[in-house]
């Protein structure tokens, strides 16, 4: 499993609340990130480094 793989999930939603409506994006951002240290091991770390070193996006790296 790598980051490029598509995870397929079945969803069977029930009807939404009667007053539910589409709202415009509130543009809020997510919580501040936390600082972490990866363990330099495994193919995913190698891929992470390659993207940085070769300056690639995920899609470019997929090719």
């Amino acid at each position, binding site marked *: *499993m790598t980051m490029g793989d598509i995870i397929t999930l079945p*969803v069977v939603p029930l009807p*939404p*609340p009667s007053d539910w409506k589409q709202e415009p994006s509130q543009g809020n951002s997510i919580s501040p*990130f936390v*600082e972490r240290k990866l363990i*330099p091991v*495994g*193919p995913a770390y190698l891929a992470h*480094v390659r993207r940085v070193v070769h300056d690639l996006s995920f899609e470019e790296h997929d090719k």
Partner: protein
Amino acid sequence: MSLNGQVPNGSAQAPIEIPSLQTVIGINFGNSFASIAVLTKEGLAECIANEDGERQIACAISFHGEETYIGNEAKQQLVKNSANTIIGFRNLLGKKFSELPKDRSTSSAPVIQHPEVPDTPAYKVQVLLPAPSPLSPAASSLQTPRTNNTPAASQFATPRSEPIPAERVLTPADVTTLFLRSLLQSAEAFLGKPVDGAVLTVPGWFAPVQLEALREAASAAGIRVLQLLEDAGAAALCASANVSTIATTDVGPDRTQLVVDLGASSSSLSLLAVRQGLFHHLTQPAHHLEDVGGDVIDDRLLKFFAKDFTKKTSVPLKVAPAASDAVADLRAEARLRLALLHTKRTVAASSVGSGSSTATCAVESLKDGLDYTGSINRMRFDMEAAPIYASVVARAGELIQRAGLDWVQVDEVVYAGGSSCLPGLDATLAVRLRKNATTPFFTGTVAGGGIGDPTTILARGAALQARLLAEIGGGTAVEDERVRKAFEHESEHVEVKATARTIGVLFPEAAESGGLGGQWIGGIQAETAVPARRTYALEVDLGEYDVGGEKLVGLEVWEVKEGVKVEKVKPPKDEDEAPESEDEDEEEEVEVAERTISKEV
């Protein structure tokens, strides 16, 4: 080096076949035992046995006359030749003499201040040197052989006349070099060709100076060190490399993993976020349990068997500790200690049905020429080891708490280290884990060299990593070198930012009153290093429901905080399975996805 010119490289999963002419291995170098793994043609990592048929190779070197013993044979020498038998040297690498605790036990060659080098630990052993040679004995005794592929003992071979008694002073680094060279030779003998590089495992708590000392000692042994990889990383890599092959587990690619490494003299616990193959510690540093491991289990078993011996023979035997001047007791203890590994292996095997429920401990001439055979059943064994299991679980609980998590949020346990083979430990941990969390015992991969086998997982992980490093290529020389450097200690590439909270989508539902008010599907979990990409295809079945003849589905994107609600009334299972998600005030965006996916499921 690019083999196919302008043609783009293969995908991340299937790198272009660079005919890797390199032969690489993984070495697990513990303070008590080491193991070696090689890569098979099928691409698997496998632990190999050395010339003595041992996969768990004791980190011991013993000097006896002109002989040098390395490994399990050397350990046998602890009975009658303890003063010339060196163990426990790995943990002294990079240490100053003045830093060492002064109350170290002396069941082996004592650690002394080096006679010439200031503030440096050393061992002094008695050896017999070959007859006079042009080289003075003093000089040769200090000399560390540098030549690659020279059997360690060969320098003492073929004496021309009477050998000369001499003292040999070795530093922990010298001993490490001799020992690692013998591992290298075992690997080369097995493979039938020279080894081009190795990944060595190291404790997560090794300081830079210790890493440096190990790297130097390994180089002196003729090993090209591809990486010094921390134990938890080797275990996690090996465990995740195998995840897809385990049909019986439901561990996802994003999970929280507890790595329990129970060795002999110490243990360590690490709580890792595993995020599609990327690993990071959720707490830094990991827990290093300096007083928990197989040795303390052995202490208790020693007392148990010594008491039994006395009961059966009326010969008093005081062990763990034996009085320092009671030679017979000291030797009896050394013999018993050696025998206990077999006893523990039997107990471990009993968990998988291939062994009996009682384990024996047999020692010839234990004391006063009397042989001893005793037995211990699984229940009694677990009773003896219970305090050790309990402290592992307690310390793991602390670690989980320190990460702001709860036991029910641990998805997977990975075991490393010989003492993790003991089924009672898993049973004790399992009580705290949620029902569908997985452990190698649960999946049945711990048994007899299975993929979860704690005695080989570190070496195998190191071998897998060695192959990964050997295959780096495809860029310019400069780029490839930068990629390789990213695996060095303290590389800037390990520094990442990670999400603090889980982001996902919500399908609002009228019927859903509590919780988030709908169906929640987590997308990017908390503790995911960014940039991250997760691609989901949601196959939405809308059934009969439509709005004014149109089938619409609404979904909202939220960031949620995951917590655990502990309720006393209900059976714990219910809460375990549905960690409560609370809305956050920062609502990111709300959108309607009309027919994002086909209505026909």
